[in-house]
């Protein structure tokens, strides 16, 4: 699914609520058929682990290395260290960040930071990926590569929700346009 709209349309807000980063003041969020805000903190944490998030502000942790940042969802999920090392190594290679595994996010350029954020989102093998402007700062080659990965995961059964200002970012079976926080009826050809 692609959520698109102009800046300030409410895409990030919608993604934050879907990603359980914001609690809605009114209305209801349902995730996997459950009411996350009616669940316990532990229950909500379990639901969050089933999501892969690419934040618009990237939210990389500065005092962790690139590899540690990418491995964080797997570590939180309790993946064994040897599996974690192997998977993160592969993922960073795929993202073109293998040579920067020991660097800190502060040493990366914005393009690389965004690739790292995507790597972290897919590392935990999530059931749903919520990606807010996942390729906004990337060069065309890196953007194409990252989109290919996301779409490949989508074909393998992962639900993919992307938010972007670009309505033609990627082929999507469902598109939702937001204007001032309100979804617009889908334009029919």
């Amino acid at each position, binding site marked *: 699914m692609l959520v698109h709209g102009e800046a300030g349309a409410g895409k990030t807000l919608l993604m934050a609520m879907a*990603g*359980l*980063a*914001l*609690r809605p003041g009114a209305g209801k969020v349902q995730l996997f058929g459950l009411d996350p805000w009616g669940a316990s*903190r*532990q229950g909500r*944490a*379990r*639901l*969050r*682990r*089933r*999501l892969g*998030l690419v*934040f618009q502000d990237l*939210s*990389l*942790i*500065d*005092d*962790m290395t690139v590899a540690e940042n990418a491995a*964080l*969802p797997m570590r*939180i*999920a309790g993946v064994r260290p040897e599996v974690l090392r192997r998977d993160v190594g592969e993922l960073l290679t795929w993202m073109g960040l293998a040579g920067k595994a020991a660097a800190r996010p502060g040493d990366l350029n914005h393009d690389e930071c965004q690739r790292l954020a995507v790597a*972290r989102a897919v590392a*935990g093998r999530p059931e749903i990926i919520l990606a807010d402007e996942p390729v906004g700062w990337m060069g065309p080659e890196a953007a194409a590569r990252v989109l290919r990965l996301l779409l490949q995961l989508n074909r393998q059964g992962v639900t993919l929700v992307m938010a972007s200002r670009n309505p033609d970012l990627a082929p999507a079976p469902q598109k939702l346009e937001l204007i001032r926080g309100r979804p617009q009826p889908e334009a029919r050809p």
Partner: protein
Amino acid sequence: MRLRLPRGFATFLITAALTALAGLCALGGATVLERTGGWRTRLAGEMTVAIRPGPAGTSDAEVTRAAEILAGTRGVAEVRVLGRSRVAELLAPWTAGARGPDLAVLPRLIAVDLDGRAPARRQGLADALNAAGIGAIVDDHQGWRRTALDLRRQAAAPLLGGLAACLAGLAAAGSLSTGREAERRQQALRTRLRLGETPGDCVRSLILSCLPELGLGTLAGGVIAAALGLASGLGTPGANAAALAQPVVILAAATALCALVAGTLALVTAVRRTRDMEP
């Protein structure tokens, strides 16, 4: 060049200083309790009889007779007649300044050790001496015992206050250091929570990063208090191992209490801050 202290060093110093003070307060309190208690027990177990001097002083024969009467009274374990020079020494604070008082006109003192099981009463001793025609004053040390009790109360209040203030300071140190660490790691903790880490795990990681400075600080404070206590002779009436055991236990308990207070407040702050960060 600007001197940059390691992170957490200030917390370490404050914790060490407050723990050392708390330990010294506890040690001082225990010493006052123990010494005044011992003093009161000793004073309660004996009486002092002062034989009133006549115009020509007090004869040795009269004192000996008084001692015999006292020794024969029920409830008396032992009687010791104090020599004239010892009496002069004891009464020196009251006679100093007087121009060489004649030792013969000073009252003669007899120390009476009471039988611990059925001690004699003050009135009983006075009656026995009066019946024998000996003018004497029997002092059961009530005044001194009251003084010891007052001393205990007066010393206990500031020491308890000091201990409470140190514990309050440690609680604040635990809370502030955890709060500061939560502030520093706010972005990382928020991200971890958003990625599905449980609040409990976040609290654990926050506490683990604060515990070394708090733990080492209390430990160092305990060691400092032990060194200062030993140097000033607090809580060590004797030099043997048994006499050392009590202050060591008191210091260990005070240090543990300090660590518990600082750790508890650190934990409470970590839980509260983590809850605030969770959406």
